[in-house]
């Protein structure tokens, strides 16, 4: 007598657990933690070594540290999302999992949950370290720092969706990873800058919205600063950025799922 099949959600959770195990046993987590540690150590130790004091007001302090927030989000998406779907095709593990009585939607959901969870935990560790340092050095944590964490987690969600989108279309995991990293770090920011030079507000851009995690602590969110001869510099408003990031997460995930559902081995 065959056992009763679990529902789609239970199967998604099973897939997520084993996907997380993949990251726990791989080197990517270690690489990410090392880079995060390096950023924190350099930012904290370098001023002392150079004989300069760290900022003693919480806003300046967090501005210094959280300027690396969006880069870490992009790195997390590159390491923990970009290979997630492509690897099933590249390494032919799809022949094992796609032939199980489990919908691709459940497998996709499991992988997405795992990628988001791992990235979110990594980014949260960074923020926690920044909060602790801020508490130790300035004596308090800026309230906008918590808003920044919320935006960072939304950016992680959107970047995970974007990583899955490219992963669903690419046949090689490495190509997907390079594309995710290059697009989020270079291509989209360049487009954002070009639009700003033309005095067009790129509020709809994933990277522009993602940068709000930094603008919220600098206190510039929602401002437009004219740059004579070079257009305007737009600092997206927090609520708009949150909505844009949620929209990017939903749209990219849906397209990635549709592709993953119909893509053949």
């Amino acid at each position: 007598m065959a056992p009763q099949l679990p529902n789609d959600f239970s199967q998604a959770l099973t897939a997520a657990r084993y996907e997380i195990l993949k990251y726990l046993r791989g080197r990517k987590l270690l690489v990410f933690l090392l880079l995060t540690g390096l950023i924190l150590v350099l930012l904290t130790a370098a001023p002392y070594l150079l004989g300069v004091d760290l900022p003693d007001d919480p806003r300046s302090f967090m501005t210094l540290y959280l300027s690396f927030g969006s880069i870490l989000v992009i790195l997390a998406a590159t390491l923990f999302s970009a290979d997630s779907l492509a690897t099933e095709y590249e390494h032919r593990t799809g022949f094992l999992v796609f032939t199980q009585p489990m919908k691709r939607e459940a497998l996709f959901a499991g992988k997405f949950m795992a990628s988001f969870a791992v990235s979110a935990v990594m980014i949260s560790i960074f923020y926690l370290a920044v909060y602790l340092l801020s508490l130790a050095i300035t004596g308090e944590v800026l309230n906008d720092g918590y808003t920044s964490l919320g935006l960072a987690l939304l950016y992680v969600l959107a970047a995970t969706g974007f990583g899955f989108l490219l992963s669903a279309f690419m046949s090689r995991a490495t190509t997907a990873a390079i594309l995710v990293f290059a697009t989020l770090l270079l291509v989209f920011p360049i487009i954002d800058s070009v639009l700003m030079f033309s005095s067009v507000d790129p509020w709809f851009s994933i990277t522009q919205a993602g940068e709000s995690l930094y603008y919220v602590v600098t206190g510039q969110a929602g401002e437009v600063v004219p740059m004579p001869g070079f257009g305007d510099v737009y600092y997206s408003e927090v609520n708009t950025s949150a909505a844009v990031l949620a929209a990017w997460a939903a749209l990219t995930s849906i397209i990635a799922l549709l592709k993953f559902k119909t893509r053949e081995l």
Partner: protein
Amino acid sequence: MTDPIVLEGLTKVYGDLTAVDSVDMRVKKNSFTGFLGPNGAGKSTTLKILTNLTKATSGSAYLNGIDVTKDFKHALHNVGVVVETPEFYPFLTPKETFRYIGEINGMSKESIDAKGQELFEMLKMTEWQDKRIGEFSKGMKQRIALGQSLLVDPEIVILDEPTSGLDPRGMVEMREILSNLNTEGLTIFMSSHMMYEVSVLCDHVAIIERGRIIAEGDVDELLADNGKRRIEVHTSKEISDQALELITSFGMVNNAQRVTPYQMQVSLAGGDAEQAEFLQKLIPLELGVYNISSSGASLEKLYLELVQDSR
């Protein structure tokens, strides 16, 4: 009761190419069916539709009465699958891989581990069950692949070239395992290029060419219907011209050829009854017959002729 595997008008079109062309086929319960065909004939595409790796353009493919094209999740429940040589997650051990597959299929941890031990012993992989799969050879992965397909005690097992990549000893062991599984009541549907393997293991065959089934049925009946039932007769006395002429004159004998002075190959018409009658007539000739065996070459010849004829 419905047959465990039923294909009805199954069609798959890729652009201008019709890879599977209105295939109708039934695989009987507890049968061991070999699925044969040259490269590009539609064999793999048919298996991929059956196992949810590709979508059919039209038609239906039923597993235990459930249409894979409409509800693959429940159709594939209670079905073991090994398509091509699957790769495994290198960060998992065979034991963990079984747990992953078992949990997806709704098995409890206890039953996964108990069944897993049984399978590791059967597959001679007990000592490897806690090692990461990353460094395993193709043959070892093939064993694990077969093991995971049997984990849920399926009623149907679909196999694609199950001995591919195995060394000769591994092939023999795998065939023994498959043969035993069939005697335990499983329905096995297996594609293979190895005619010897099919003739040794399968009681039914289906031959596909250019997306269409060109022959299907019981192996013995197909061979008999096409005059390809062939046996080899070994004797302790020399086979004389006179004896050979007499044997050729038997009603059920299509052709008899001497291979060596003490061995002949006889092509028979009809089925088991005709073969029994032939043996009854052969013994009184006092040739000292000490061994009679089916010739594996007969299925190969039938296959080659059918494929040739369809072109």
